[in-house]
């Protein structure tokens, strides 16, 4: 027998959960799942699927969380009814429940200590890849899958091919993980890394704080990735420990692991990036944008609604006012982030500048709550992850995407603006 070929992080996590010595890309395996999550957009379907199985089959519900985040707060009776059903189901089946205003699924799961390094986590949302920031294999699934996990504790997976992307150098002050992910979307295009697991590594990742690492992994959903995984380091382990997670079991790739391909980006020269209207992969540097006016500025979502994002915005807008005619809404990704921003005085800074805060949830991202609809021919600059026509309930409005720093700088000037032009100096570690 020859030596077993080196393995990627994904192959190792899936092998461990399949109780096999090793697995290889392309193989179908049945894995023990550590944690499952259901959001309110897919809860009706999940409960319908659950009802197709016998109720007595619900053996693994204690490792499931129901999260009321997309319709937070509910915009119509139908959404309120879904929430009622979820609360009822959670009580009966003894799952975890995160109610309106508690936060977005991808924030409350790590904050709640529900996952740790080396885990296998599934959720009914494409951005479940976010958990890779903690060296967990996180991926999006649907109702049949969750029902199956609640009944059997297991799920089938096709082991993905992996790609390795080395991010060397150091981001300049004013440039963030969001700019890296937008650059990657410009390069590989939407769905360009379909089915694949991305392993990001390198000095730029090591230097990132957890908030930025979550952005990096989260946005891989738009690349079509099945997972986006980082190695765990001391920062990861400390963060998980602070949030009451189980003992991390970090998983590293072998030196001779097989990757479909490897890529490299030195981020030191990277400028802030924006995705132009309608297409998440139509990406350019802010230096290439010529006086593009904006009327609406949004900070929030599972991509960029974290404390570091709110800090960036407050740093830019402290003691200043939004440009005339610009509206700005900030939606913290969770109640904990809201409270932290409150304690740091960030909410006072931004509210004084003219921004409004909303209950934690997905509201800033998708126009299903119908409480931040842009007007016809208005331009939105948002930290969200998707900008297709009509995403905010108005086909006649344009949505551009950028980092929280770029959104705040643009809200200040009224035009899409490189944040480095409005604040100088070293603001990364202030």
């Amino acid at each position: 027998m020859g030596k077993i070929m080196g393995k990627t992080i994904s192959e190792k996590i899936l092998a461990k959960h399949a109780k096999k010595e090793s697995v290889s890309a392309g193989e179908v395996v049945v894995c023990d799942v550590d944690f499952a999550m259901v959001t309110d957009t897919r809860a009706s379907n999940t409960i319908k699927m659950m009802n197709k199985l016998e109720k007595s089959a619900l053996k693994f519900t204690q490792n499931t969380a129901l999260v009321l985040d997309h319709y937070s707060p509910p915009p119509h009776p139908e959404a309120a009814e879904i929430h009622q059903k979820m609360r009822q189901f959670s009580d009966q089946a003894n799952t975890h429940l995160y109610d309106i205003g508690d936060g977005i699924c991808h924030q409350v799961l790590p904050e709640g200590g529900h996952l740790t390094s080396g885990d296998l986590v599934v959720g009914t949302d494409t951005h479940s890849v976010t958990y890779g920031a903690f060296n967990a294999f996180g991926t999006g699934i649907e109702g049949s899958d969750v029902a199956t996990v609640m009944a059997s504790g297991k799920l089938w997976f096709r082991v993905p091919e992996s790609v390795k992307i080395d991010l060397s150098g150091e981001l300049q002050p004013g440039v963030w993980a969001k700019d890296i992910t937008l650059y990657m979307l410009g390069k590989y295009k939407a769905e360009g890394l379909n089915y694949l697991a991305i392993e990001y590594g390198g000095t730029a990742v090591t230097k990132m704080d957890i908030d930025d690492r979550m952005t990096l992994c989260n946005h891989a959903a738009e690349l079509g990735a099945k997972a986006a995984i980082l190695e765990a380091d001391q920062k990861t382990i400390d963060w998980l420990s602070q949030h009451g997670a189980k003992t991390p079991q970090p998983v590293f790739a072998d030196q001779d692991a097989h990757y479909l391909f490897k890529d490299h980006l030195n981020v030191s020269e990277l400028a802030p990036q924006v995705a132009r209207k309608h297409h998440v992969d139509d990406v350019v540097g802010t230096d290439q944008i010529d006086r593009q006016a904006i009327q609406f500025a949004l900070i929030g979502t599972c991509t960029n609604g974290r404390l570091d994002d709110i800090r960036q915005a407050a740093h830019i807008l402290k003691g200043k006012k939004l440009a005339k005619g610009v509206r700005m809404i900030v939606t913290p990704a969770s109640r904990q982030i809201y409270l932290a921003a409150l304690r740091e005085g960030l909410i006072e800074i931004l509210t004084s500048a003219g921004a409004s805060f909303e209950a934690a949830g997905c509201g800033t991202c998708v126009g299903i709550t119908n409480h931040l609809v842009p007007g016809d021919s208005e331009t939105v600059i948002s930290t969200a992850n998707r900008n297709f026509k009509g995403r905010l309930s108005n086909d006649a409005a344009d949505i551009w995407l950028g980092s929280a720093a770029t959104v705040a700088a643009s809200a200040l000037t009224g035009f899409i603006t490189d944040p480095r032009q409005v604040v100088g100096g070293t603001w990364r570690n202030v």
Partner: protein
Amino acid sequence: MSNRLIQGKTFLLGDDVNTDINCSSKYLPGKDSEFVSTVAFDKLVPGFAQNINSNGGGIIVAGKHFGINSSREQAIHVLHIMKVQCILAPSFGRQFFRNAINNGLPIIECDTSNFKAGQELSIDLNQGAISIPSGETISFTPLPKEILKIIELGGLLNFITKHPDWNFAA
């Protein structure tokens, strides 16, 4: 495993078909799957739903990334109502691919550039062979046997009900 053959007529769609927009009620609030099945894909190919419904179903042959962005199982339920027997495309959105398997809809990854509308195909899922009217056979890599088993039983919930121990060989 049964040597399942799929026989049907081809209906063509292009690249990057978003099934959330074209085959679900995500943007048709209050409408059910029955309704969606009468208008599905009409924005891309006018009359598509009517054509496939009046034929009593068929095989969809599409371009790359079929089911892009889609996280909705409802898309598969609608395709079942339309009696879509199988979908051929060079690649699928990964969530759609998974949902299709979990709901017992055969999908095949293959080069679809040479298919024409209205061809009668005969597909052997297990052997990985598509016979076209000219007598030619196009081969594709069959899905892994575990996935074929889930599809054969009509989806994941049927599979797990019948095989709570996850025994694919049974």
